[in-house]
């Protein structure tokens, strides 16, 4: 079964410093990987995805993620954090149900990012 793990409950970063939010995955076959962000009292907003191609994926708001097949990781990164980046971040993998139908997303438990001025 597909799964993702986000090993950190919270990440604290000073504004202007680089940030990394970690994600590892377990899938059979080639993974479809996603990052979403959730601001307080809001739904999930899509940030970026890896389907195929370049291992470095660029997304919204200056975020990027690096797909590493050997380490089964898909860490989210940003070169310079902003206070407004403070939110809950979810890594997800596309489920691949039998029969070849399009699956839904399996989410990690989320990582709270706190950026201090």
């Amino acid at each position, binding site marked *: 079964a597909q799964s993702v793990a986000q090993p950190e409950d919270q990440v604290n970063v000073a504004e202007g410093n680089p940030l990394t939010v970690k994600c590892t995955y377990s899938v059979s076959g080639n993974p*479809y990987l*996603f990052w*979403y962000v959730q601001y307080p*009292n*809001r*739904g*999930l*907003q*899509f940030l970026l*995805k890896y*389907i195929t191609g370049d291992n470095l994926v660029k997304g919204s708001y200056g975020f990027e993620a690096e797909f590493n097949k050997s380490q089964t990781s898909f860490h989210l990164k940003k070169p310079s954090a902003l206070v407004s980046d403070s939110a809950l971040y*979810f890594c*997800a993998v*596309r489920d691949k*149900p039998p029969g070849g*139908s*399009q699956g*839904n*997303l399996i*989410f*990690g*438990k*989320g990582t709270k990012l706190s950026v201090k001025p």
Partner: protein
Amino acid sequence: EAGVAQSPRYKIIEKRQSVAFWCNPISGHATLYWYQQILGQGPKLLIQFQNNGVVDDSQLPKDRFSAERLKGVDSTLKIQPAKLEDSAVYLCASRTHQGSKGNTIYFGEGSWLTVV
């Protein structure tokens, strides 16, 4: 392009009462999902529709939860009777099957349910 619309945004009910949530997906999106997000956890799928047919409802507690998408567009999720553990955010999401966005699932703002 309008996003996924959900209502109501917030609802407080007593246990054993019923509640219904409505969702209108992004126009043209054939696949619609309902997820449940309990505080401190990631969202978990309740049910997935493609057009007006159910693709996956294996994790839907069918003794109290029901969902429909009769005309293949908007959808309703109902809980009856509600339990305290149903307190959560109910997220509706949709996906097209076409083009470069076909692999991306887009979420609404969520319906926040508190059962007291």
